């Protein structure tokens, strides 16, 4: 399936085609082996890692297996992120750390307002996006489900906008589908639904709303059976994408038989 999607319907970000529209996070995984099995089962080709939580090993070090070895071994591209940063300044420094350690311009920009909600701080986010774009980063901006802000981030040069479905780790699903639809309808960069996903149907809904991809971590890493849940998301994202392109029927108040009563062929 992945191969077909890569040929027929790849997700292209910054000129790079990806066959999977499921982007994974790594936080909350109980063991390295468990995380590896879940990432493999998800079919993901892009996975985000918190630079403040996992230090990339020094070049040439032969330390034990770590998260970065795991991604490398499985041909999964790393998207460093700035999780845990509360100011534009911290986010900038963390992004530079990620670029240096992992040799990629890509960064998922997260600037959090407070620990209680983990919601993005719009003012710091705008400032950090501007600064990172100026420094040559490809910014994946984690943002509120605010259509005005999402468009503004794109205008500032973000390579992708990542509106949240619900606050991080809540598993509440997509709380404002209308806003997500509005963001998608006005965007000319990829829109990636990020945060708040609880179960497979949430991811399918995001794709049906027109999102280009879905990013999630806790929904898989904190599930009782992460591998089974990762498989569920892999299918849900493909299903939602196909449904979005297939042209759904209009919602009607009154029933409409699938075969007309008159002149029905006698099969």
């Amino acid at each position, binding site marked *: 399936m992945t191969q077909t999607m890569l040929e027929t319907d790849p997700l292209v970000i910054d000129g790079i085609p990806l066959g999977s529209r499921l982007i994974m996070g790594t936080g909350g995984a*109980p*063991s*390295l*082996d*468990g995380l590896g099995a879940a990432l493999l089962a998800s079919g993901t080709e892009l996975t985000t890692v918190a630079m403040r939580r996992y230090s990339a090993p020094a070049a040439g070090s032969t*330390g*034990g297996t770590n*998260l970065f070895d795991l991604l490398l071994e499985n041909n999964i591209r790393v998207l460093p992120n700035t999780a845990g940063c509360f100011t534009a300044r911290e986010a900038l420094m963390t992004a530079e750390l990620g670029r240096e350690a992992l040799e990629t311009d890509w960064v998922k920009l997260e600037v959090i307002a407070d620990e209680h909600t983990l919601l993005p701080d719009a003012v710091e986010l705008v400032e950090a996006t501007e600064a990172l774009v100026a420094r040559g980063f490809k910014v994946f901006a984690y943002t509120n489900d605010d259509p005005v802000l999402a468009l503004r981030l794109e205008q500032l040069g973000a390579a992708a906008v990542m509106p949240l479905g619900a606050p991080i780790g809540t598993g509440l699903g997509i709380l404002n589908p209308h806003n997500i639809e509005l963001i998608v309808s006005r965007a000319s960069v990829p829109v990636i639904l990020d945060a708040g996903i609880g179960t497979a149907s949430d991811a399918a809904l995001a794709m049906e709303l027109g999102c280009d991809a879905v990013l999630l971590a806790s929904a898989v890493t904190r599930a009782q*059976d*992460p591998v089974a849940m990762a498989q569920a998301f892999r299918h849900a994202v493909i299903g939602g994408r196909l449904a979005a392109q297939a042209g759904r029927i209009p919602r009607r108040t009154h029933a409409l038989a699938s075969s007309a009563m008159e002149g029905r062929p006698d099969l």
Partner: protein
Amino acid sequence: MSCTAPDPLAAHDLSTDVAVIGGGIIGLGIALEAQRAGHRVTLIDPAPGTGATFAAAGMLAPVSELHYQEENLLPLTLASAALWPGFIRALADDGYPETGFRFTPTLALGADAADRTALADLREAQTSQGLDVAQLTIREARKREPLLSPNLGAAHLIAHDHQVDPRAVAASIEARLIAAAGAEGRGEDQTVVRARVTALLHEDPADTRSRICGVLLDDGRSVHAREVVIANGLGAAGLGALPEGLVLPLRPVHGDILRLRVPEHLRPLCTATLRGVVRGLPVYVVPRNDGTVVIGASSREDCSAGVNAGAVHQLLRDAQVLLPAVAELELIETTARARPGTPDNAPLLGRVAASDGTGIPGLIIATGFFRHGVLLAPMAARITTQLLAGVCDPAWDRFRPDRFSPALQPQEIP
């Protein structure tokens, strides 16, 4: 490096039956049981008991530490928890009663509605494994522990999860090792060698999969031994002349842990070990005999060995959700140490495959105990002592230290 012919000039070299590399709780436990089994033992560590053992809270908690997808570990953790009372009794019988062992129960507490659901789901997994977890009302829990916050969402009683004080156990074992060897005329400097091991010594210096016959120290001396046990945690992977092809995938998982003194008027702060899930984050409060409590522990993979301010804040914040009176305590110690993590969170324990499929003679590995080092120490000691006696229980094959070494797996016959 070879050791077949001990250098007669190197009069300061040591000779022993079993050389144990690493003086944490695992190495000490192994040395103790090996000594009890009649072997002459030499424990080698520049500073015994100052690594992860120094930080550890000492919870003996196979039930509350059951994690999803890690049910394979349960037979080992349960067996080891069952050995602890006897392990403690034997130390006391030898004249070393200071171990901080307490038959205190454990209370699993949840703060909000989601934590309540998480604990209820976990209880289902625990009881399906035949483990004893009783649901309490918050009122019942507070009758046992009056200082618990009334604002809790869930409380479960786990009667069989107890605790020891790892620092006290380590000190008692070390003293016992030295005294028992002394009674047989062996000096302290032969029993506990305060040096670092740089490399293993092989019977055939050209073949790292040949018999191991000792270790080389950083002060230039050698310790010649019939058996070498590698039990130095994260340091194991850095030893020189490990068997070719052996991969020990250890990574540091740093933990911050706090020690606090409870003022007289608040004693006892709690009588059970409290393990909370506070808005999805774990925190525990372990009461000690001396009126102090241990609050822990963070889990960081940021390669930062010092105490992390954010982690200390989070631990104190979440502990206060369980016990508001924590704010009144005197913070007397913050400690950070690294746990030796493995990819599957299970230990690396046993012999390493030689080219003929049997174990490499003279070598046993016991590391990678991650967050279960204290709990698993008696079982690590028992399994190692059995291996020393030539007994290999297939029940523990899944913890083989060479399971992550593709080059050492049995070859499929095509």
